[in-house]
């Protein structure tokens, strides 16, 4: 706080020696000059990590010798609604003191503020403590001059799954940001076993009420999704903490991993094109007819690209006959075989 205050008081770059006059900790005679300089460097780095835009200014020789914190970069602009209603509201109240007169005015449309409030509410519901806190603080700041409200839309998101461990999320956040390898224990439900994994984390996606880590698995030489709630004992590679362990490929697109995908679209199997006829008079088939692609040759039918036949025929079965596969023949056979095996379970009364 002292360092920020010392930098904000002046409008020009200042040296460490000048700062020492205003920051008592840097003038402590009990410490060596090197120790005081290290303290300043550490404070400066931590403040930058918090988002305080401290600039390093080079002298004529190109060496960094002075530092600056521009009020215009540090303080929030004055917020105003567009159009400002009464004339008196057009000019923001500018307090007396260094830097306040030069701050710009940022005009918001009312629908933009409502959208920001709704976005913050959406983030609150994702059960990521750091992101939730950041969204809440952001709204508190924006609401300093003007109300940021969602217009009274009541909205709740529920998840049947337990939330992720905040400490695990924190470790993954750090690893993703710093591009450091991360090790963790992963509970695989498929094999009902725990396994130690060491991966290169590319990003986090929130999908279907769950957080997933998208990471490259060097052993498998491929990208994998890890459900964060199944991760425990996560640690960031501690060696060379300031040096990234890996590069994220330029063509990597995190958005493509945030697309909601059906189980039958995943996997390494060959892609099969399947034609399905939906009985549109039924209630439950109505939503499904928005999936897949229309089939120009078969009105009333949809075409799906399927990589996992077992997952697809189970989904079809859930329509109880209102979704009938037409081609190819192996899918039709698999669907009917699944129905036969299922009805066998009901041969004996419970």
């Amino acid at each position, binding site marked *: 706080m002292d360092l920020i205050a010392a930098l904000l008081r002046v409008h020009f770059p200042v040296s460490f020696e000048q700062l020492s006059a205003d920051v008592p900790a840097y003038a402590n005679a009990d410490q060596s000059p090197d120790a005081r300089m290290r303290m300043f460097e550490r404070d400066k780095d931590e403040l930058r990590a918090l*988002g305080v835009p401290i600039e390093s200014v080079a002298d004529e020789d190109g060496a960094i010798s002075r530092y600056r914190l521009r009020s215009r970069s540090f303080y929030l602009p004055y917020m105003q609604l567009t159009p400002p209603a009464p004339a008196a509201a057009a000019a923001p109240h500018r307090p007396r003191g260094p830097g306040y007169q030069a701050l710009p005015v940022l005009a918001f449309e009312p629908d933009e503020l*409502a959208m920001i409030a709704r976005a913050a509410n959406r983030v609150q519901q994702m059960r990521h403590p750091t*992101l939730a806190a950041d969204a809440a*603080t952001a709204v508190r700041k924006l609401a300093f001059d003007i109300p940021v409200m969602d217009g009274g839309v009541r909205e709740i*998101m529920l998840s049947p799954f337990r939330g992720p461990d905040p400490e695990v999320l924190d470790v993954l956040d750090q690893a993703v940001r710093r591009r450091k390898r991360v090790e963790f224990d992963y509970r695989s439900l498929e094999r009902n076993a725990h396994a130690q994994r060491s991966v290169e984390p590319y990003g986090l996606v929130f999908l279907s009420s769950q957080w997933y880590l998208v990471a490259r698995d060097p052993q498998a030489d491929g990208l994998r999704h890890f459900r964060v709630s199944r991760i425990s004992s996560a640690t960031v590679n501690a060696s060379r903490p300031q040096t990234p362990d890996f590069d994220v490929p330029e063509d990597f697109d995190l958005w493509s991993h945030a697309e909601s995908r059906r189980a039958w679209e995943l996997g390494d199997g060959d892609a099969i094109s399947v034609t399905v006829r939906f009985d549109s008079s039924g209630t439950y088939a109505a939503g499904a007819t928005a999936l897949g692609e229309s089939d120009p040759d078969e009105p009333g039918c949809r075409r799906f690209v399927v990589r996992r036949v077992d997952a697809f025929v189970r989904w079809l*079965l859930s329509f109880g006959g209102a979704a009938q596969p037409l081609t190819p023949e192996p899918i039709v056979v698999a669907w009917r075989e699944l129905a036969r095996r299922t009805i066998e379970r009901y041969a004996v009364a419970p």
Partner: protein
Amino acid sequence: MSARTTDDAASQLRRLLIAIPTLADDQPHPIADVAALVGVDVDTLARDLRTLVTRFEDGPGGFMEGVRLAFDKNTVQLESTLFRRPMGLTPSELGALELGLAALARELPPHEAAVAERARGRVVEASTGLAPEVARVPALAGTLVTSEQDGLHLSQLRTAIAGHRKVTLQYMSGSSAAGADRSVHPYGLVHARGHWYLIGYCDRAMSIRIFRLDRITDVTVLDAEANIPPNMDLEATLHDGMPLVNSAEEVLRVQYSAAIARWIAEQQAVDAQPDGSVIAEYPLLDDEWAVRHVLQYGPDAEVLEPARIRTMVCERLAAILASA
């Protein structure tokens, strides 16, 4: 300095950068109000503020030249020439809002997605000038709607809720093949288990009802004002992670095989069986939902009761096997 201490000092700095602009208008403020605004208890706020004017031998305290602080029993007053505006949005705060805005933009109809994009531009302008990659977590959120039609209906319903307007829904209930008009006073929206639900008072049923978004085929926002009880509590309409306001007397009991028991147990309370299978119970609100829910698991799920649903499942399966 330990990581913990650093984190505490950082948190304290964040809190002070919100508290000081609120307080520094030379007026006394109820300390409880400021603490609530900052999001901490009164003791924490008081401790934070004291560090501004108190010199400690060790620890995160400091001494701010020109800051004057006065407490009495319930109020606090602060004078300062610095920090009289909040700090701009930090990269991590900006990233959090962008995450929410991007998720909304992908599920909203185009005219509202444009608002989300404009709002994103504004919050970027409200951020500090620091390179955003410094502190932003690369995180994205997928959309919560599966079709453009659902996105449009969701938008219309939000408009109606915000404006306290009644709506007419064309709604396909579980048992009716054709949609029917429902006149509804919309209370709020709930997203659960992959679906959006509208909670509202249905004039036809003369009680609170839930409407699943993907069964709504048309929404008309009416000019008529919705009648919303002043003490309406959306949370009270939820039960065990699901919106359940329709009366449910029956219970659906399903046994899941050992092969999928772990996945079921991850989502809900189950009764584990000696053979590794599990039994779960659900309030039975809708027979069609029950049939569909069980069939998605094929031979790995069996309805135990009620017998009526067992019969429905068997009839559907028999019809599939009888089809050409």
